[in-house]
C-alpha cells in the first residue's frame, strides 16, 4: 500500500518518536527547572497572599488576567482554523491541522491556569460548582472554556486515531512496553475498515461544525468579563467580536510560530512548505486588517465624543504612561507584520515567522493595555493607580510559558505532529477502494458523508 513518498512521510514523522537526542532531554530539563521555579514563586503567593504581587485595590487585575486573555486567545487558532479549513476542503491544510489542534488544547491548559493563580482563595474553586450563579460572566467563562477544552481534546483525538493505529503497529512487540500499551489503548481497535472510516468521517464532521460556535463563544464571554462592567475602555458593545477577531489573529500567528519551530526542529521542510507560510500569512494579513478596523472603530467612536473617563484613558494610552505599550502594539503588532506580508520580497517563511512573533508580542501588549489602564483610571478624584508586576507574577507567568512549551514538546515526542493519514490521503486519493468524489480534482478531498447527502451510504 505504501508508495515511496508515503513511506518517507511515515519515516519522517515517526523519527522523533523513535529517537531522542540529548538536546531534547536538555530542553525538557530546562523547562522543568523553569516550572519548578514558578511553583516555588506560587508557594510564596499562597503563603503570603496576593500582597506579593504588584496588584492593589486600584489595579486589582494585572499580569495574570492579561496572560489569561492572551492564552485563551491563541487557543483560538487551532481548532477554529483547522475546522474551517477542513470544512472548506482546503487541501493545503493537511500537514498543519494537527499542530493547530494541539495549540488549542495546550493553550487552554495553560490559559485556564491563570484565573486560578489570580484567585485570593484558590482552595475555594469548588464553590464555582457548588454555589455557581449563572448571572456572573465568570461562570459563563467557566462553562464555555471547559466545554471548549473537552471539545478540542475530542477534536484533536479523533483525527489522531488512524495515526495512533500506525504507531501501535510500529511499536507492537517492541521494547517500549509503555508506548506499545499507550498506543494500543488509544487506537481503540482501529483497523482502517470502510465502516470505521465512515464513522470517523461522521464524527469529525460533527465535531468540526460544533467546535466553531463553541470557540467563538469562548472569546466572546472572555471579553464580556470586561464589557459587563461600566469602566471606561471596557464598557464597549463591540468587545465580543473585537476579542474574537483578536483571538483568531493572535492564534494564526501562534500557528505560524509553532509551525516554523517544528519545521526546523524536526526537518519537515518537505511537508511544511513555503506555501503554508504564504497562505497562513495571507490569513494573518486579512485578520490584521480586520483587527485594525475594529481597533479604529473602538477608539474613534470613544475618542470622537471624549466622555470624561474615555478622554482621560485615551490620553494615557496615546500620549501618557501607556503610550509605549499602545504604539508598540499598533506599529509592531499590526503595521510592520502587515507590511512584511504585503511585500512579495518578505513573503518568505522566515520573514512571515518574524511577523508572527511580532503579532504575538503585539497582541500580548494589547491585552495588557486593555486590562491595566482601565483599572488604573481613577473613578473619583484620586491619583492614577500604578501597577508593575513583581518577581512572583513574572516567575509564574514564565513558568506557565514553559509549561506550554513542555506539553507541546512531550506531545511531539509521543505522537506524530503531522496528521500522517490525512497527508497520505492526499497522496493516494483512491486508497483502499474508497470512492473518490466524482468530478473532484485528482488530489481532491474525499467528500464527507455529512457534507454530501447520499454520498457513501448508498450503494454505488
Amino acid at each position, binding site marked *: 500500500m505504501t508508495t515511496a513518498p508515503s513511506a518517507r512521510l511515515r519515516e519522517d514523522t515517526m523519527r522523533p518518536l523513535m529517537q531522542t537526542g540529548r538536546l531534547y532531554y536538555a530542553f525538557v530539563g530546562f523547562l522543568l527547572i523553569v516550572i519548578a521555579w514558578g511553583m516555588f514563586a506560587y508557594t510564596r503567593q499562597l503563603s503570603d497572599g496576593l500582597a506579593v504581587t504588584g496588584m*492593589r*485595590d486600584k489595579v486589582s487585575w494585572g499580569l495574570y488576567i492579561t496572560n489569561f486573555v492572551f492564552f485563551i486567545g491563541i487557543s483560538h487558532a487551532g481548532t477554529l482554523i483547522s475546522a474551517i479549513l477542513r470544512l472548506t476542503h482546503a487541501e493545503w491544510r493537511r500537514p498543519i491541522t494537527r499542530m493547530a489542534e494541539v495549540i488549542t488544547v495546550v493553550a487552554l491548559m495553560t490559559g485556564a491556569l491563570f484565573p486560578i493563580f489570580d484567585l*485570593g482563595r484558590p482552595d475555594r474553586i469548588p464553590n464555582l460548582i457548588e*454555589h455557581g*450563579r449563572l448571572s456572573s460572566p465568570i461562570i459563563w467563562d467557566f462553562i464555555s472554556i471547559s466545554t471548549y477544552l473537552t471539545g478540542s481534546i475530542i477534536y484533536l483525538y479523533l483525527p489522531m486515531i488512524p495515526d495512533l493505529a500506525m504507531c501501535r503497529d510500529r511499536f507492537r512487540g517492541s521494547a517500549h512496553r509503555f508506548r506499545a500499551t499507550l498506543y494500543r489503548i488509544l487506537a481503540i481497535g482501529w483497523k482502517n475498515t470502510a465502516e470505521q472510516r465512515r464513522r470517523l468521517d461522521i464524527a469529525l464532521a460533527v465535531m468540526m461544525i460544533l467546535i466553531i460556535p463553541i470557540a467563538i463563544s469562548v472569546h466572546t464571554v472572555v471579553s464580556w468579563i470586561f464589557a459587563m462592567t461600566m469602566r471606561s475602555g471596557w464598557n464597549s458593545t463591540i468587545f465580543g467580536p473585537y476579542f474574537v477577531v483578536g483571538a483568531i489573529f493572535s492564534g494564526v500567528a501562534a500557528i505560524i510560530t509553532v509551525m516554523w519551530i517544528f519545521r526546523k526542529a524536526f526537518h519537515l521542510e518537505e511537508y511544511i512548505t513555503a506555501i503554508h507560510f504564504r497562505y497562513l500569512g495571507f490569513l494573518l494579513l486579512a485578520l490584521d486588517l480586520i483587527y485594525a478596523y475594529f481597533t479604529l472603530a473602538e477608539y474613534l467612536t470613544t475618542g470622537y465624543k471624549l466622555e470624561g473617563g474615555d478622554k482621560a484613558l485615551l490620553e494615557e494610552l496615546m500620549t501618557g504612561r501607556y503610550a509605549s505599550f499602545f504604539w508598540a502594539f499598533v506599529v509592531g503588532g499590526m503595521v510592520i507584520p502587515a507590511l512584511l506580508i504585503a511585500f512579495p520580497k518578505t513573503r518568505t517563511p522566515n520573514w512571515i515567522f518574524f511577523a508572527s512573533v511580532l503579532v504575538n508580542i503585539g497582541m500580548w501588549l494589547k491585552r495588557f493595555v486593555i486590562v491595566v489602564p482601565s483599572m488604573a483610571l481613577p473613578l473619583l478624584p*484620586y491619583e492614577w493607580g500604578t501597577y508593575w508586576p513583581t518577581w512572583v507574577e513574572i516567575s509564574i507567568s514564565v513558568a506557565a510559558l514553559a509549561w506550554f512549551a513542555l506539553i507541546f514538546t512531550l506531545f511531539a515526542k509521543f505522537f506524530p505532529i503531522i496528521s500522517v493519514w490525512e497527508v497520505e490521503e492526499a497522496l493516494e486519493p483512491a486508497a483502499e477502494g474508497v470512492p473518490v468524489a466524482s468530478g473532484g480534482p485528482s488530489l481532491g478531498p474525499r467528500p464527507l458523508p455529512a457534507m454530501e447527502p447520499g454520498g457513501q451510504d448508498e450503494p454505488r
Partner: protein
Amino acid sequence: MARITRRRLLGVIGGAAVLAASPAWVRSGVLPIKRSSASEGDEAGGETTAQWGMIIDLRKCDGCESYTPGEAQCTTACQREHMLNEDQTWIRVFEMEEPGGGTYFMPRPCFQCENAPCLNVCPVGATFRNKEGVILVDQDRCIGCRFCMAACPYGARYFNWDEPPEAAQKLLSRPTPEYPVPQRKGTVGKCEACIHDLRYGKLPACSQGCPMNAIYSWDMAKDLATNGIEIVKASEFIDEGHGYRFKEELGTRPRVVYIPGHGEEFGRKAES
C-alpha cells in the same frame, strides 16, 4: 470487544455532565438569589424591616480640615471599628472640584446600590443583599476573584491582599457577613453600613466618628434619618436640600443621597 454504541456512550457522557452540573443549577437559579443565612430570624420583633440608606449633608462636611487636617474622622472611626489595614478606606473623603475652581468634600461609603453591579457579577453568590437592603460579603464563600472590584463604578470595594492587623487577627470573634471582623486574607471586604450596630439602634462608626454630624442613617421604610443629634423626615430633608445621588446616570440606584454643600455650616468657603 464490548459493544460500546455511540448512543450509549453519549448517554453516559451526557448523564455524567448533568450530574456534575446539577448542584449549580439547582442551588443557584439564574437571578440574584435571596440567600442570607445570617440575617434570617434577626428581624426586629413585629416591625417592618428597616431599609437602610444614608444621607450625607455636604454643607456640614469640611473633610475635617478644621479639625484634624489630612485625617478624615469617618475613615478613622470605620477602620477602628472594623480593624482594617490602613489602605482599606471603606469610607473615604474626596476633595471634589467645583466649576468655579473651588472645592467641596465628599465622603464615599458603599452606596448599597439597588441595582448593584458588584452583586450581579459575583460568581459564587458571596456578595448578597440582606433584608435591610445592605450589600454584604460572605467571606467564608468569596473566592477572591475581585470581579466585584472591577465592576464597582465607585471603587468602594477592597481586597485583603494581606492579613488584617495583628490585633484583629487575635480577636476571638468569628467574622460574619454582618460583622466582618477580623477581615480574611484573600477575600473582598467593603462597607457594611454597620448593620451590626444599626439594627440595635446604634449609628454607624463613620456617623459616630464625624465631628460635624454630617452623616445621617436613613431608614427608607420609615422615611426617617438621623445623625445622632436630630431626627429628620428624610424626603423633606432631601428635597429641600436639593439632594442628589453620585453618578446617578449609571443606573445603579445608590441608596446614598448627598445634600450639596462645601462645609458652609462650619464657615468653610468653597474656594478655600
